[in-house]
């Protein structure tokens, strides 16, 4: 079996196991309130990390580039109660424009 197929099979098996683990372990039962409180905080923690890594992460270092401008404009629009769709479109537009001019 070639290296590629070894990678395909291994990554797929790992992926299925990772995605199955949470639902098996944390689902289908009543959990203590403290555990539920931790689980509820996973969502803002994950969203924060996704925003940070996808806005500022660039090949293993932090970068302040056109993405930060676009996401920053979206954040301001959202703070002014703009609809989500408008904010997301604004982010793409501003980023594309900044890249065009930059």
């Amino acid at each position: 079996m070639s290296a590629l197929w070894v990678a395909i099979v291994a990554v797929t098996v790992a992926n299925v196991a990772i995605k199955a683990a949470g639902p098996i372990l944390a689902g289908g039962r009543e959990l203590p309130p403290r555990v539920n409180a931790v689980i509820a905080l996973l969502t803002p923690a994950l969203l924060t990390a996704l925003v940070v890594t996808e806005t500022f992460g660039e090949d293993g270092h932090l970068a302040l580039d056109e993405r930060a401008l676009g996401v920053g404009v979206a954040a301001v629009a959202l703070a002014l109660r703009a609809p989500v769709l408008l904010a997301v479109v604004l982010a793409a537009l501003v980023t594309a424009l900044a890249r065009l001019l930059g």
Partner: protein
Amino acid sequence: MRNEVGRGSEGYLAGMRAGLPFALVVGVVAISFGVLAHTLGWGVFAPIVFSAITFSVAAQFAVAAILGSGGGVFAAIAAAVLLNARFLPMGIAVAPFLEGGPLRRALEGQTILTTSWALASRGGGRFDRAFMIGATVPQYVAWTVGTAVGVLSHVVVGDVERLGLDVIFPAFFIALLMRELRSGGKRTIAATVIAAALSAVLVPIAPPGVPVLAACGAALLGLKERSS
């Protein structure tokens, strides 16, 4: 904690509609993955099977980057697994809202994608399972079909970065984060600050995937919940 929203087929259909715009972007990225796989000499069958059974954009690009630059297969697997490690905390977060026994929940868990998971979040840590499953369907089709189109045509269509489409993901995530912050209390704000600091500090020193996983440690603030 039971989800009252999205019962019946409307939840799935609404999720599918919500997943469509992301599916368009995923399709364009998939074509470029197919073209990349072709230039790496992966043939036609392997890349399409890879997309169909793994369905993981970041992990598959990591495998392509590492194997393509002469890296070892174990390095490629390790990088892909680290990138996908985020599905563990995401799976824990949606777990209380999935249905049925362990096997059924494990199967429903396979539909977790970062975008679908985010689309299905309803604030305050609640999730709409039917919406998540529905949102994954068009993205799965786009990723698999797009890979096949790229492998067979060898033609890149559209430049996701030039069109600024790469930022629709963090922009969408920040919208959901702001909703969490509005509906949550001081603890949500504290968890957000800690998660931001952890992920920012780790980006330059840890392999990709680790910053997101480690940031989940901020959720341990929930242990301060009084048992009542």
